[in-house]
């Protein structure tokens, strides 16, 4: 049974490494952020599987912390990235943002 858990963990590690292609390619920052979100979930699953395979129950706590804080990076991305108005700007003033030139990402 341990071999089975470990193979499953290895398989999930493989999916993370495959998913990295999306982070590398983008093209938008939303795509990269979504890929990171999926890695977080996959990491939680790997930790749960390893906690059974290696018989180390503390790994469950590590998985719990990952699950708990998985949302922080996404919130930082959405709440900060591309929203430069000062603290006292009224609600929903994002339209002002589109005045700046948009430039597609030519970066691979």
């Amino acid at each position, binding site marked *: 049974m341990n071999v089975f858990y470990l193979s499953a963990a*290895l398989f999930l590690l493989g999916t993370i490494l495959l998913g990295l292609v999306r982070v590398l390619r983008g093209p938008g920052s939303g795509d990269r952020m979504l890929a990171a979100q999926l890695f977080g979930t996959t990491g939680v699953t790997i930790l749960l599987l390893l906690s059974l395979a290696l018989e180390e129950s503390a790994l469950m706590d590590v998985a719990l912390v*990952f699950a708990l804080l998985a949302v922080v990076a996404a919130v930082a991305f959405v709440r900060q990235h591309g929203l430069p108005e000062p603290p006292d700007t009224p609600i929903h003033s994002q339209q002002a943002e589109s005045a700046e030139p948009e430039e597609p990402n030519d970066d691979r």
Partner: protein
Amino acid sequence: MNGLLVLFDLVLLAGIVGVAWRCLASTDLFRAAVLFVTFGLLLALAWVRLEAPDIALAEAAIGAGITGALLLVTLERLRSIMAERRSGRPHTPPPDPTGPHALLRALHDPPPERRTFIPALTFALVVGALLVTTLWHQPPSMGLEPVVDAHMDASGVDHPVTAVLLNFRAYDTFLELAIVLIALLGAWSLGRHDLIPARPAPGPILPGTLRLLVPVAIVTGVYVLWAGSHAPGGAFQAGAILGAAGILLVLARPRQLPMAPGVPLRLGITAGVAVFLLVGLYGLAAGHGFLGYDRAWAYPLIILIEVAATLSIALTLVALFVAGRPAGDDA
């Protein structure tokens, strides 16, 4: 089973090195930041494989909760500063010798010049090869594990890492708390601007998630702190978890919170160092030496220090994230 474990290690290490390499080769800084967050996730798995669940716990809290938010917010600050300068002085040539492109795309670093390629590669390869050779030929030793194991009775706790941190090598931990405090003093010395603006919630989902996550995070932090006396966990991990929860609150708050009161904030931030110092001086006065404990009092004293240290670390991490002295206390 063994072959599978070796395969897992090899794939994991290849992934870690590959992610680090692509991160440092990025021209787009946002991509580098996301890759660095992934790097932290993979590192946590590596610490698990190295039988270090304590480190994995801290890495999970810091890698998932703090580093990512810190990097993304810093990039956003750089972007808005540069956009402001660009719109403010359109005809002034930028002082940056890498040309106008660098200002046009603030979150972009042009690839390095060719002439540094050979020397940098040679230097890195030589250092790496020396390190690998040394590490491969290091004579096997038991380390300090038997020594720690022999003295566990005297430590007051049941978990060896906590015993080392708060009893056997309490000096290190004390100075480490002081360094974290000094980092915050350095950040505060840069001025008072740059507070993170409050924003209205984009919908009902974020406030709802916060109402679920923040209480669970506080309970988890206290649980990890309590677990530290007999299992992986302790002040650093708990402080990192609570700090990440605080960062989440700072990021997601819908309106400006009342100013953090200066004196209680400063008391909380220095609590770890202060309590540690007081306990150390008490030990000195009672004849156990600086930071030595009476055996019967070791457990309550360790818990006291850990609670104070958790509070300090959490507050300091949040304050470092906000980067800037709290406004309104210039007295």
